[in-house]
């Protein structure tokens, strides 16, 4: 291990040895190092948001034929800092009748849930917060805490719109967890592990090639989990003022804001780790630090797509969105899971007897899975076609608002 190929572990080692030489016990040193690591990852995450907020605003502007932020710093890159100062110095407004503890707890829960996710994301083969052996489940568990934050915020604000936003949050976030978990099970099945790092390790062929449909389902449903456009029904400003965050101001609002941006970035990172091969790339074995670069390149590509979707898609209606989840995504994910499991099992049984060439096996496997995915998609499309609504839905006939009185009979004659 040397500094150039793996700087972070190198420094950690050096620091650990230093602390040990001070006479601290091994346990204490581990705890201290873990704390420093957690602090670093957290700080890194928050600082990243500063950049992604600028990036998103810039992209937003370009799409709408504007310049976007362009005053503070080169290309407006420091625009976020004045915004931060503004939000820090704003007044905290606490409306009458709120449940104070819950009201203050909610933004913290909401932002920490997102940040907790970063604990299991592998940035490089050797740089991972903690490689929990049930990492994928951990992701889901932490995600549900985020939902809790939103609900509490909505309820404790003592505001109808907030509460409505919270109701929608329950309906949306909890529902979309189902296809998300089902889609997550497919990488688990293919990689035969629940640890995120081992899943990255298992991606000789990226899972998005093996199962593009699963990737798409995961992407869609985690997009819905973030509550961003086109799934931003929790805070639909045309209907609910600002949804669950209506009554928040100042830094508490900032926390929700940062939480949302960080969440969007986090799902891009998860997408990259679970489906796009994470840190995998050429020469990563020799130079682990390269993995960080690969990982962030992939993450930013996905993030770019996330932003593009947010910018270009109109908002869905709540019933459409739930229909889409329960009547389309969930069955599709279930079918896909069953098909993948069968194919995988059949492949495991078949490989020894078919005596395929050792080298080609991962690619053959990928091909078979891809083929099954295409077949599933094809059947889905056929079914959708045959069930498409043939007639335009009948809308109630418009009733005249005011009926003109019948002219008196004498006028006619």
């Amino acid at each position, binding site marked *: 291990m040397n500094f150039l190929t793996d700087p972070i572990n190198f420094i950690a080692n050096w620091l650990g040895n230093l602390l040990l030489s001070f006479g601290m016990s091994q346990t204490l040193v581990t705890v201290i190092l873990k704390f420093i690591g957690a602090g670093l990852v957290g700080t890194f995450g928050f600082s990243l948001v500063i950049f992604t907020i600028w990036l998103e605003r810039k992209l937003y502007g370009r799409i709408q034929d504007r310049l976007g932020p362009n005053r503070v710093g080169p290309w407006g890159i420091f625009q976020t800092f004045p915004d931060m100062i503004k939000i820090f110095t704003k007044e905290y407004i606490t409306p009458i*009748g709120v*449940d104070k503890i*819950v009201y203050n707890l909610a933004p913290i829960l909401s932002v920490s849930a997102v940040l907790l996710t970063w604990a299991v994301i592998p940035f490089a083969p050797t740089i991972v917060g903690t490689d*929990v*052996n*049930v990492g994928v*489940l*951990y992701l*889901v*568990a*932490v*995600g*549900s*805490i985020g*939902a*809790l934050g939103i*609900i*509490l915020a909505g*309820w404790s604000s*003592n505001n109808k719109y907030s*509460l409505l936003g*919270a*109701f929608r949050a*329950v309906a949306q976030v*909890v529902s979309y*967890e189902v296809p998300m978990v089902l889609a997550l099970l497919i990488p688990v099945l293919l990689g035969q592990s*629940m640890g995120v790092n081992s899943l990255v390790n298992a991606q000789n062929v990226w899972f998005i090639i093996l199962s593009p449909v699963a990737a798409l389902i995961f992407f869609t449903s985690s997009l819905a989990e973030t509550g961003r456009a086109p799934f931003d029904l929790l805070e639909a400003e045309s209907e609910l003022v600002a949804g669950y965050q209506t009554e928040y101001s100042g830094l508490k609002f900032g926390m929700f804001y940062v939480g949302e941006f960080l969440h969007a970035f986090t799902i891009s990172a998860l997408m990259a780790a679970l489906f796009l091969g994470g840190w995998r790339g050429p020469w990563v074995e020799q130079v682990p630090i390269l993995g960080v670069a690969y990982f962030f390149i992939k993450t930013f590509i996905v993030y770019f797509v996330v932003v593009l979707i947010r910018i270009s898609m109109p908002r869905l209606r709540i019933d459409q969105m739930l229909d889409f989840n329960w009547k389309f995504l969930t069955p599709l994910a279930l079918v896909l899971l069953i098909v993948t499991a069968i194919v995988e099992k059949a492949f495991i049984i078949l490989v020894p007897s078919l005596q395929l060439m050792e080298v080609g096996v991962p690619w053959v496997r990928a091909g078979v899975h891809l083929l099954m995915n295409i077949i599933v998609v094809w059947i889905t499309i056929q079914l959708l076609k045959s069930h498409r609504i043939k007639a335009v839905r009948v809308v109630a006939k418009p009733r005249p608002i005011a009926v003109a009185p019948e002219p008196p009979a004498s006028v006619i004659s």
Partner: protein
Amino acid sequence: MTPEQIIFLIVAVVTLVAGISVVTSRNLIHSALWLILSLFGIAVFYVLLDAGFFAVIQVIIYIGAIAILFIFAAMLTRRVMQDTGPQSNSNWWLGALIALLLLAGIAVVLVNWQGFTALAPELINPSGRLSQLGLALVSPDQYVLPFELASVLLVAAMIGAIFVAGEKKQ
């Protein structure tokens, strides 16, 4: 006192206090929040018991689903935020007596049992345990039948819940 014991005691106290608050709190939403805290404490116990998988499952199912459902139901059946009046019925003293009696009974039975103060044996192969559990749940000579029954129960419960809570279209 080892660190583990200290952690246990702190978590136990927090969990029990949260539990007592669940059954005594006047505000139903607060009850639910205390319940969440209590369930978190139990998740920590699972970790202490070398069952990390169950800790994660506890968070997903109890906090991610059940507790949220509770909050949701509480919000749906509420007109005002604050509940008024006592939250216990007139038999509360009898209930408390019964609960204490039961505790005493259990304590007596437990203290007389010689395995009561046993210490945990060394755990063999902690990492393979999860896959072992998974295989046991679907292997025909172990738990596949109860497991399938549980899944049938879940499906039945789901259909039943949808039917019962759904709007009846006339």
